């Protein structure tokens, strides 16, 4: 399968990438690892007329240990997030989640920024960054903008990034004392039918669910129940509260609600709750 023809712009700097996006607007898409975008283009579900390749901007691939958080460059590959010693020590949920994405070949190409900016509601990292109360840093013509993860995901494949903005950095707080990612799949390399991310950070428990709505969502009822002293089993019963998941070939809406409860309980227990 061959994508529709497009113009290719190789950005040699972040400024060049932003300038190209500003020039081409909605017609352009950023190409990082290409492991969300290229499959869509091959199926001709995506037909951008310009690809701006930022894959060579090595300054966007890093992990830094800051005072209270770790900063991960948007072009850091899943493979590197999975194995990075700082991530493993300070944000082990992210390493665990990155290691469950696709397969080794996919993890050698796919990037954390690409996955977040693509915003597929079934993908793994958005749920993890949401559970961790992460912050996303976007750079545009006017400079940097910090976006809380809770405000980043707007809809199916839709984020609050402006057409001329580039996601450059992901920040997640240090201080994890427990974590879990429960991903229910029929085959190992599949997308999550339902996924649940749990992060205990600085005394707070964040729980998020993927592939139960058009965006990843926080399980606020579970978090509130835990904060009021409920047991993991009782809190997990609240996991499907307010959810109206869609049905597809993999799962009915009721099965997804069931998975949300069961996986949340398993996740809370694995996180030590």
């Amino acid at each position: 399968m061959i994508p529709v023809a497009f113009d290719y712009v190789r950005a040699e700097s972040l400024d060049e990438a932003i300038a190209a996006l500003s020039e081409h607007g909605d017609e352009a898409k950023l190409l990082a690892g290409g492991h969300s975008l290229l499959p869509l283009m091959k199926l001709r579900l995506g037909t951008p007329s310009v690809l701006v390749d930022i894959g060579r901007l090595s300054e966007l691939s890093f992990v830094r240990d800051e005072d209270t958080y770790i900063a991960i460059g948007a072009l850091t590959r899943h493979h590197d997030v999975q194995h990075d010693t700082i991530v493993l020590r300070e944000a082990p949920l992210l390493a665990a989640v990155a290691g469950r994405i696709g397969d080794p070949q996919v993890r050698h190409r796919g990037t954390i920024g690409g996955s977040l900016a693509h915003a597929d509601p079934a993908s793994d990292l958005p749920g993890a960054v949401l559970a961790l109360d992460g912050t996303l840093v976007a750079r545009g013509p006017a400079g940097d903008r910090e976006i809380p993860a809770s405000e980043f995901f707007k809809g199916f494949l839709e984020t609050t990034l402006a057409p001329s903005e580039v996601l450059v950095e992901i920040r997640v707080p240090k201080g994890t004392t427990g974590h879990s990612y429960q991903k229910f799949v029929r085959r190992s390399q599949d997308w999550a039918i339902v996924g649940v991310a749990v992060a205990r950070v600085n005394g707070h428990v964040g729980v998020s669910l993927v592939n139960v709505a058009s965006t990843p969502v926080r399980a606020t009822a579970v978090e509130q129940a835990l904060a009021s002293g409920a047991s993991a089993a009782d809190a997990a019963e609240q996991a499907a509260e307010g959810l109206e998941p869609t049905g597809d070939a993999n799962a009915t809406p009721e099965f997804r609600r069931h998975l949300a409860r069961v996986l949340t309980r398993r996740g809370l227990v694995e996180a030590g709750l």
Partner: protein
Amino acid sequence: MKVEVGVNGVAYERDVEPRTLLVYFLRKLGLTGTNVGCDTTSCGACTVLLDGESVKSCTVLAVQVDGRSITTIEGLADGEELHPMQRAFREHHGLQCGYCTPGMVMAAVSLVAENPDLDEHQVREGLEGNLCRCTGYHNIVAAVLDAAQSSREGAW
């Protein structure tokens, strides 16, 4: 657009359309050992090494690897001398119809290069991106475990 790609140690300069996928770029060079299987980033038949790491060449553009180094199944053997992974696949009969084999071997080479100290579970997980529709996984896993051991013993 002009690209120069190192393939199995040879530099190829070609003019390509930006939408040209790496797998078709390689096959047009006459290197047809890399198979197109599912063409949807699932089956792994098109796996090659990009700077030594396994990637699915149906989901990489040729323009993305401009100036970089690719190894295909044709680049593993040293003349008549098979690569230890190829030898292990032959000794353990790690193939049935053979269609998945080039990708399976390349994925296994990358897996062992990253961590030669593998147990059976890690081999099975490490090959999750490669499907054998003959379901001949048993001997494939045995071959990779054997090759990993030879790598640990310094035979690579």
